[in-house]
């Protein structure tokens, strides 16, 4: 069997820490090969080694049987290796085209020939069905779009070995749907793919083989057809993992969050939330299902006081919090797990301890008449680290050095420990491994069982279905319907999210296809 890529006994150290410890990975021509492992297991590191960003201490890399020395990304590009990084490598204020051609720009008399570039890009995107606007600025396009740009970057350079590092982590179901189609297309075009993902179902659906690593060590490679999600989970975590988190039936009490005819505009002054009504009660988890960009972000920011409301009312425990300062709202009983943990959730330069106290630092016991009490803060941090199993050197380690998975656990620990009456969790499991997801879901349900209200925003329908007691579907800034998980299907949700009320269920077949690409319009 011929391998296009062979990574043999790779060891990569950071200081004395072995991020990769003698890992072997072999990629067959024309296969989609999954690389599976917990957060911080060493997947990105291994791929960065292959892409020439890191130099391994030991082991060798072979491309088409030939030993190669990938000293930097240029070499990788020349070898036809392209990588879609976990954290996009895109220059925000440049256009799609500029990002793609960067580094080998088509020229006409010394001037960048944008027209030609754009044309070439459009051709490639047609060929693989990646539709993008070549003249759009990165900062203005959706995450899904940005991902396509990343893919186009590799294709434009004629890569035939593609590495996808957690491509689906930040995509909506529809976008994932398309990405999978794209990957299949790539394979038929003779490319080979390494796919990193934490979503076992995806692995089952698209991959041919799976290589599992745990804590930097290779566990082995299995053929997808001969395995199942449970086995994979066990392999990577090293213990049994339950998927369908079982929970006792809810007994909702009085309303905690009440939103009435809320209207919110975005930075450009365009209405994103258009007279929205919503309520979340004690002891229930309400899931907000919807396609990205239908007003979810604006809704959350309005509730948390980070964005002015244009009209309408928001109240927590019958206390009107409309237009209040964020801190007042937090004190009114709100906890918030923000969508973008690096931008809004954490101060990366601060230690784990400081971040643990980021919401509470200003009152006792953490500070008294303006003077901080750091010892009590580290006590508190230690507690959270232990309770929420945050993997870190200690509470004084900078958060930057934690894996995103653990960064996420820290935020959840921080917010849940405050025991808020209302917990808003926005995409709480994005980018996390199944173990971590299971853990976080348990916590959310615990909150609800303790009679708290939980408001869960997620693009993952199965997460919504699994965890929520009620599902509110948002479309175009309004709640189009509220359904009970047991009484609905992903199908139906999909339709509702696409803006169809129950009435026109009849014609769901045609709609069915529409859902696919429908969301970019």
């Amino acid at each position, binding site marked *: 069997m011929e391998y296009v890529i062979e990574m043999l006994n790779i060891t990569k150290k950071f200081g004395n820490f072995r991020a990769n410890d003698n890992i072997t990975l072999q990629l067959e021509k024309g296969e989609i090969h999954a690389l599976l492992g917990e957060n911080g297991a060493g997947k990105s590191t291994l791929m*960065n080694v292959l*892409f020439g*960003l*890191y130099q391994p201490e030991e082991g060798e890399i072979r491309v088409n049987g030939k030993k190669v020395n990938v000293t*930097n*990304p*240029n070499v990788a*590009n020349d070898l036809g290796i392209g*990588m879609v*990084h976990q*954290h996009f*490598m*895109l*220059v*925000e*204020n*440049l256009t799609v085209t*500029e*990002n793609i*051609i*960067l*580094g*080998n*720009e088509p*020229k006409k008399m*010394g*001037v*960048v020939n944008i027209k030609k570039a754009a044309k070439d890009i459009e051709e490639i995107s047609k060929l693989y069905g990646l539709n993008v606007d070549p003249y759009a600025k990165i900062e203005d396009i959706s995450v899904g779009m940005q991902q396509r740009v990343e893919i186009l*970057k590799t294709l434009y350079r004629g890569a035939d070995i593609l590495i996808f590092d957690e491509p689906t982590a930040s995509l909506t179901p529809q976008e994932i749907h398309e990405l999978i189609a794209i990957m299949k297309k790539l394979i038929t075009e003779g490319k080979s793919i390494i796919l990193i993902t934490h979503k076992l179902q995806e692995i089952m659906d698209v991959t041919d083989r799976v290589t599992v690593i745990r804590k930097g060590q290779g566990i082995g490679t299995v053929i997808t057809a001969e395995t199942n999600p449970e086995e994979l989970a066990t392999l990577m975590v090293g213990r049994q993992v339950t998927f369908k988190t079982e929970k006792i039936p809810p007994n909702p009490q009085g309303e905690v969050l009440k939103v009435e005819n809320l209207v919110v505009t975005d930075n450009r002054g365009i209405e994103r939330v258009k007279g929205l009504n919503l309520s979340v009660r004690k002891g229930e988890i309400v899931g907000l299902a919807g396609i990205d960009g239908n007003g979810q972000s604006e809704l959350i920011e309005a509730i948390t006081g980070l964005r002015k409301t244009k009209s309408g009312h928001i109240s927590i425990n019958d206390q009107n919090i409309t237009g209040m300062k964020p801190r007042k709202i937090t004190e009114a009983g709100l906890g918030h797990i923000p969508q973008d943990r690096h931008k809004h959730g954490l101060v990366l330069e601060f230690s784990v301890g400081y971040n643990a106290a980021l919401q509470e630092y200003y009152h006792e016991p953490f500070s008294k008449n303006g003077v901080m009490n750091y010892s009590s803060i580290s006590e508190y941090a230690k507690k959270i680290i232990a309770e929420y199993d945050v993997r870190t050197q200690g509470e004084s380690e900078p958060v*930057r050095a934690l894996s995103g998975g653990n960064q996420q656990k820290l935020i959840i620990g921080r917010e849940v420990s405050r025991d808020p009456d209302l917990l808003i969790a926005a995409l709480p499991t994005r980018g996390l491994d199944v173990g971590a997801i299971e853990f976080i879901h348990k916590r959310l349900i615990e909150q609800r069982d303790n009679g708290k209200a939980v408001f869960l925003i997620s693009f993952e329908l199965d997460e919504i279905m699994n965890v929520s007691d009620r599902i509110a579907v948002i479309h175009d800034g309004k709640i189009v319907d509220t359904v009970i998980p047991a009484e609905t299907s992903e199908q139906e949700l999909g339709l509702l999210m696409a803006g169809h009320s129950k009435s026109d269920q009849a014609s769901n077949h045609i709609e069915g296809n529409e859902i696919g690409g429908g969301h970019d319009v």
Partner: protein
Amino acid sequence: MSFLEVLYFIIPTSIAYAAPLILTAIGGVFSERSGVVNIGLEGLMVMGAFVGIIFNLAYADVFGSWTPWIALLVAMFVSAIFSLMHAVASVSFRADQVVSGVAINMLGIAIALFSVKMMFDKGQTDFIQHKIPRVNIPILQDLPIIGPMFFKSVYGTSVLAITVAIIAWFVIYKTPFGLRLRSVGEHPMAADTMGINVTKVRYTAVIISGGLAGIGGAIYSQTMTGDFGHATINGQGFMALAAMIFGKWHPIGAMGAALFFGFAQTLAISAGSIDIDFIQKIPTVYFHILPYALTILALAGFIGKANAPKANGQPYIKGSR
């Protein structure tokens, strides 16, 4: 003076004042667009002003009326080399770019003055005989109103400055180098994964800034003072820095800002002496601070904040995130 006469005076004077700032500020744009903070502009200007005068004095009889122009080239060259120090420190040695800039400022004036001492055995050079002349642009100068405003007795260097601004815009926004420059200043790691040599781009950018600041300084000394001494360049570098930010790191913007400074300064100079009683009664200090106050007001009036290039000031270290 009649209102028109005032304009005929203010406009050309503003442009003349702005020319050195424009070039220097654009130098700053190049450097900072690549992610290297450059508060060493002052020192680079000093070097240019000094070299310009020295060359002019030394070769006046060789090159005659061409001397000041060739002096600009030489000044550009020398300052560019001088700016290498800043490049090495802030790109290769990962020095704090601001401190390195401060050092450049100290070093520039020190070297220049020391050389002057050595060469002339006094604190300032002799006076150059070939200053940069003012010319009347044929035909255009006869146009009503704008003729005397823009085309009568203008410095060739003012034209040069504006041309350079346009070229800079073209280079930064139309050429491959410009594209790479911008990407390196925003997201060096992304650029790196695209096979761009971050170090090389940054070196080039800093050297360009050195060259342009050099020309700026040489223009100043060859139009305003005619000699070089300890006070020839004092603060213009920082005004250029301000112009760069005011212009939102955009060459045309920087030019606009520099012209605005020039206008404000000239306005202050003329305003004080308009023969209207109540203006005469205003204490002069208000005219002294007018240009700076105007600038602040103008900024406050500008909506939308200026965003520095994201990676500005951060040395690029492979493999760290």
